[in-house]
């Protein structure tokens, strides 16, 4: 049977964030009855591997493409081939440095972490030392989540100093826990730590637990373990984008494009601060994944 075929190529594969996006994409795929494949280079940052995937997908003549470009420029030439082949391209999670994508479903990473910075400031009383546990030093997501936080603190909270930024490749849970405990010892006056993705957030929670520290811990994304840590107060709260929503909207937009319907140029999938108090709130809940 020749159902329309939508190829989704993300920045990563096995990390929970991308698995959540995949979840949403699958949901939409079944809902609109299309074939859908979801892949991404294992270990973010492998630009050339992503190009190989794009070209392989092109050989399958998809009806539409959803792409989360690892490097917004490097992908342009291949995307041009899609355009020439008349295949509509939808960007998600982060943009592409060209006008080829007819639509982009993403959230404003910078704004979302600015919110995290505000919450951090509020919870530590507007002054003192804080640190960042980042999951990636080079990927756009990683950079934006770090810089958004740093800039907001610098801009609005002169009494708060960021004393340390540690990276844990891909946010490996155990390694993040080790890094957390090390930072706590290296900076005895530390008042808070912000972790930039699910893996680092869970590591942050474990490290805090294991070292019996009382600092303010703020995470990002969700996942069952992080939700548990927020419920039991180990994490003060987290920012969630709506990865499931991103995946869903991307496929939806792709289907509309295939059908030739008009597609909104930008779909903002939004972000939220959630903590003990609002974790079960009907507005928040759909934005969280287990």
């Amino acid at each position, binding site marked *: 049977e020749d159902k329309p075929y939508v190829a989704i190529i993300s920045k990563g594969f*096995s990390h929970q964030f991308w698995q959540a996006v995949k979840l949403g994409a699958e949901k939409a795929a079944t809902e609109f009855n299309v074939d859908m494949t979801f892949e991404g280079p294992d270990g973010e940052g492998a630009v050339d591997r992503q190009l190989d995937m794009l070209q392989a997908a092109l050989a399958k003549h998809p009806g539409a493409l959803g792409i989360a470009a690892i490097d917004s420029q490097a992908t342009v030439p291949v995307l041009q081939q899609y355009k020439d082949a008349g295949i509509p391209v939808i960007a998600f999670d982060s943009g592409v440095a060209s006008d080829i994508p007819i639509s982009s479903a993403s959230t404003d990473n910078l704004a979302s972490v600015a919110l995290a910075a505000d919450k951090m400031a509020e919870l530590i009383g507007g002054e003192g030392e804080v640190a960042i546990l980042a999951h990636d030093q080079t990927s756009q997501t990683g950079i934006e989540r770090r810089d958004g936080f740093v800039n907001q603190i610098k801009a609005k909270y002169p009494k708060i100093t960021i004393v340390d930024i*540690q990276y844990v*490749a891909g946010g490996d849970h155990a390694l993040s826990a080790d890094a957390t405990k090390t930072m706590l010892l290296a900076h005895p006056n530390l008042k808070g730590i912000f972790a930039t993705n699910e893996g680092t957030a869970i590591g942050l929670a474990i490290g805090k637990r294991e070292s019996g520290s009382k600092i303010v811990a703020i995470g990002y994304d969700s*996942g069952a373990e992080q939700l548990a840590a927020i419920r039991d107060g180990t994490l003060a709260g987290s920012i969630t984008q709506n990865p499931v929503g991103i995946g869903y909207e991307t496929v939806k937009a792709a289907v509309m494009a295939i059908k030739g319907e008009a597609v909104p140029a930008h779909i903002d999938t939004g972000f939220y601060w959630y903590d003990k108090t609002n974790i079960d709130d009907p507005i928040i809940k759909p934005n969280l994944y287990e």
Partner: protein
Amino acid sequence: MNDVGTVVRPRSADSFRSSALFQQILASSGLIVLLVGFSLASPNFLQTANIINILQATSVNGVLAVAATLVIISGGIDLSVGTLMTFCSVAAGVFMIYLGVPVPVGIVGTLIVGLAAGSLSGTFIAKLKIPPFIATLGMMLIYKGLSLAICGAKPIYFTNAGGFNQFSAGSLVSAVIPGVPLPNSVVVLFAVAVTAAFVLGRTALGRYTFAMGSNEEALRLSGVNIDRWKIAIYGLAGAICAVAGILIASRINSAQPAIGQGYELDAIAAVVIGGTSLSGGRGTIVGTMIGALIISVVANGLRILSVPQEWQIVVTGSIIIVAVYFDILRRRGAA
């Protein structure tokens, strides 16, 4: 001739030491230098809490390194230790959560899975004569894919497996000696290392491991059933990886299908820094332990000093080279 014999016996005795006991002291000298250096560089380094962090951070890699040591001494190599660890933690999840078996049973089951998996690699290598590098490279990917497939690329949480997370994070030691919150994972590492050292040093399996690494054909022509012992070695290594899988799963209280790849390099690095030769036939567990410690001390120390990430990587690389060079110099001195 006698005179030569008598003249020489004492000397040879220490030439023997230099090949085993000595090596350890030598390797450890590198470790000591690092410890002293970091202690001077930062007051926060040499605290009980931090030392315990280092030990805990060593436990998983240490256990994997023990597994790698066995295989490497036998003249092989195992690239699958990392993802096999992951595969075993997923297996633990399947047992304890999906099937809901009690924790002890689940642990035994996991060990059996590791044993079986290792034996499978061993069979490929012994029976089908596939080079260890290839066999274990293939298995590395297979375990990785299977781990993702089995749990639908989502972690399995042990929230309902009563007290499983205590297995690693809890501290029986502090119960015995108050004030020493040494996590169980460290105790487990110690137990694994001691057992492995015993097997290597005192049992036939250990002796065959060394002989195999030294001259496999000669061993075969001595009427020894190479295949059986080789499979046993890889099987044992697999079981040890299962221990690592249990440790990490219980520490992060979940089976994370995505982790594991890359761990094999740390493990092998620990082995070689510890003075075990990749060409097989020589090596010690103590050396491996020191190697593993060197790796985590460097990681911890550089973080304590808040060295920028990229420079942490550079320094780690340099230290691996320097540590081994150190070892070589001292050994040459001893010889």
